[in-house]
């Protein structure tokens, strides 16, 4: 039963007085929004995804974009999204896929947390003039150090360190697979991360040989589909991450539409060309915590205990207890991905409704690990909706060792968060495999954007730490005394273990 069309999401207009008919818009839009007829550019606004590629490339600023030009009758419950999802499913009878992160309209907890600074009684430290240390080691730490004093007074170290990743900043780049994003995007991220002395994840799509030069800065992922996993892959990574779940879609596996699986993706991922890559919801060899501990040991055994093994879970309600179980396996780090985490494609209902925010998850995990006396021995990496250096600083103060960024790193490559990643036509060359689109992203130039972003944030964190009188990131970690809650409810403040604004030391 046809119900006609829904109102257009965008209205694109060309200012013909300004337009010089260069046809850049036509060339740049892979969705077919523009065409030329006679001496005029004509527009099909319904094709537009709001990606801004045409606007960024128009030499005359002749394009105007309006969001929701025709809206529905307003209704507080039956929002536009609610109504359109129903029209969509009435038409198709299927699960709705969506890109990028959670769009639920609740304020991030980050925005309700405020940082501290020194005045008078203790001096702030100026990072321009004094050393400021952000170096972060990710991996297992000994719970205590044992030494023996030799007869000549020399001290002999009896404790041996497990392998750790040495990061010069607490910012790492999370796992975005080859397939979900292009090789050029991965190359830009990898080179940018390496330049800043930090690390990036491969995602579950294997490791393309063009990334081998950066393998010492890459964390290889073993997910439930085991795509791209063989011993060579494991041995190339600086660390190995077992992905149990991700914040954008806890409880289910990855979704890579067959449209994005070309020859090269197929080879790297070890799956047939054009096949949909739907990873299983659980790992078929992990049905309990002891199975996970076995896989951690198995991977370590395979790589001769030379590499740290991380375990990534989505922030679900019982995240603290699960993380504690992981911490007491041989795992070196627990990665917690909050419900604002992005993705190339996830069922809309999962993206928006499953899991908990990273702020609460980090606080709960840190507390539980301390309660069990293992916090200091294992690293905690947090991710999911980290937008700037203030978010990073707050996450560390709540108890994380380091963060993964995903969407922010893609934005540094031009991504405009249009949320159409699953269509495989990303006009910025990021979430696509179409060669002409991928070619738009030149890794020899764009790696600098990634490097600059991490550098800029790192400088800002150094300034924030110095203002708080802290010259070493260890002293920020779990230092919730330096956070205050602004308009948060008492229960949440208890979970975060943070005092209200106005409360003194």
């Amino acid at each position, binding site marked *: 039963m046809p119900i006609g069309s829904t109102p257009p999401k965008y209205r694109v207009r060309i200012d013909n007085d300004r337009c010089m008919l260069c046809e850049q818009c036509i060339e740049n839009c892979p969705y077919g929004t523009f065409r030329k007829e006679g001496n005029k550019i004509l527009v099909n606004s319904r094709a537009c995804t709001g990606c801004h590629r045409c606007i960024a490339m128009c030499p005359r600023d002749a394009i105007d974009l309006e969001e929701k030009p025709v809206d529905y009758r307003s209704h507080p419950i039956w929002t536009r999204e609610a109504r359109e999802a129903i029209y969509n499913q009435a038409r198709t009878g299927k699960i709705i896929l969506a890109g990028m992160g959670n769009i639920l309209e609740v304020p991030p907890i980050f925005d309700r947390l405020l940082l501290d600074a*020194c005045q008078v*009684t*203790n*001096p702030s*430290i100026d*990072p*321009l*003039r*004094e*050393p*400021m*240390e952000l*170096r972060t*080691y990710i991996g297992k*730490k*000994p*719970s*205590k*150090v*044992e*030494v023996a*004093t030799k007869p000549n007074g020399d*001290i002999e*170290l009896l*404790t041996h*360190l497990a392998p*750790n990743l040495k990061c010069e900043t607490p910012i790492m780049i999370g796992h975005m697979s080859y397939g979900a994003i292009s090789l050029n995007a991965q190359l830009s991220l990898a080179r940018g991360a390496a330049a800043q002395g930090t690390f990036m994840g491969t995602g579950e799509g294997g490791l393309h040989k063009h990334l081998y030069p950066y393998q010492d800065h890459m964390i290889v992922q073993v997910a439930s589909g085991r795509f791209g996993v063989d011993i060579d892959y494991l041995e190339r990574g600086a660390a190995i991450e077992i992905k149990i779940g991700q914040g954008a879609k806890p409880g289910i596996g990855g979704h890579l539409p067959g449209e994005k699986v070309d020859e090269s993706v197929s080879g790297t991922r070890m799956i047939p060309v054009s096949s949909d890559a739907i990873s299983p919801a659980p790992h078929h060899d992990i049905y309990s915590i002891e199975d996970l501990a076995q896989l951690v040991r198995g991977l370590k055994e395979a790589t001769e205990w030379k590499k740290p093994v991380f375990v990534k879970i989505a922030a679900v309600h019982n995240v603290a207890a699960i993380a504690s179980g992981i911490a007491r396996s041989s795992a070196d780090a627990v990665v917690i991905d909050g419900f604002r985490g992005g993705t190339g494609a996830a069922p809309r209902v999962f993206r928006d409704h499953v899991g908990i925010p990273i702020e609460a998850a980090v606080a709960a995990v840190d507390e539980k690990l*301390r*309660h069990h*006396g293992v*916090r*200091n021995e294992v690293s905690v990496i947090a991710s999911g909706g980290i937008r700037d250096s203030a978010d990073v600083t707050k996450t560390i103060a709540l108890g994380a060792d380091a963060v993964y960024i995903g969407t922010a790193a893609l934005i540094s490559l031009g991504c405009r968060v249009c949320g159409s990643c699953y269509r495989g036509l990303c006009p910025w060359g990021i979430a696509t495999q179409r060669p002409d689109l991928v070619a738009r992203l030149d890794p020899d130039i764009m790696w600098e*954007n990634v490097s*600059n972003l991490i*550098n*800029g944030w790192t*400088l800002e964190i*150094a300034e924030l730490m110095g203002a*708080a*009188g*802290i*010259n*070493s990131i*260890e*002293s*920020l*970690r*779990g*230092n*919730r*005394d*330096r956070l205050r809650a602004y308009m948060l409810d008492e229960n949440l403040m208890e979970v975060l273990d943070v005092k209200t604004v106005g409360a003194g*030391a």
Partner: protein
Amino acid sequence: MLSHYTYFADISCLESLKWGKAPFTICGSMCGIISVIDRSGEPMNGSAIKNALSLMNERGNGEGAGYAVYGAYPDYADYYALHLFYDNLVEPKAIVEQELEKWGTIEVSEMIPTSEQPRLRREHIPWRYFYKPYPKSMGTAATEEDILIHIMNKINTEIPGALLFSTGKNIGIFKASGWPEDVAEFYRIQDYEGYQWLAHNRYPTNTSGWWGGAHPFNLLDWTVVHNGEITSYGTNRRYLESFGYKCTMYTDTEVVAYLTDLLARRHALPLELALKALAPPFWDEIDNMPENERQLNTTIRMAYGSALMNGPFAIVVANSEGIAGITDRIKLRPLVAAEAGERLYISSEEAAIRVMEQDLEHIWMPRAGEPVIGRVR
């Protein structure tokens, strides 16, 4: 153009500088500390240190002063000397004594002798016990120290009107809200003798005027005097709590005592290494050390990152074997050391040391983070 910054409206990012490395030191002033050890074990009475501490009155504001003396109670050297503040001698005292008798025996129970001072308002009643715990009373593998820590936590968190602040053997802590000379006269410090002393003149900002907030702080054999503010307090506290310590004194100084106890006693690290964990070298320095030293320092820093103390501080920490002075990693508080014969002095100010000893053989400013240690022979 500021090379380090970019403007919000500027879409092109500017090349940013790595932060510069130009360490320098600032001498902030808040509180004065002084400590002395006689390495031959020769006792000294409290009159000289009283004068030295009073000399630094500019560093205090009359809201807190205190003295610690090691070797104070030779007649009861095998007993734990417990010093408490009672708000009255009726309710809290009976409950405290009931708790003490649960885990051991009280040998002596007495009021600490004091003499009224016109400028000092008596807020509490100082009391002391000489006490012997029975380790077996806890059943498990608990030691005498564990029982004392349990009792201290119990009294300080659950018994209103009582504060236990001194729990060492042969150690006495004497402190109150007031100027150093008044506090000394109040407790008649000159009547006590010991082979090492620590003293503190306070300008409180955190817990103003409260007797319990005055220094020195003591835990079993450890005593601390501290000038500064620990900006990593939250990190340190949460780290200590995971080992069962409870921070009950509402001040950052107690974490110093607990951290030293954890590292030097429970983890059995040599004192130099324990102190190194609290104020470790910078990574740049560690990276350039010879291999063995680099391994040791890297391991210490990685294992004890949460014990690192940040923010400005100068500290003297002592146990019955000696005293150690240390500052934060960029020396944001002053510390000076001097030697005369068997005696080692550590103080905020050289002038204070000279009040105690005119004829110094050697006087120096320790570098940031570098411990000065004096041990009893």
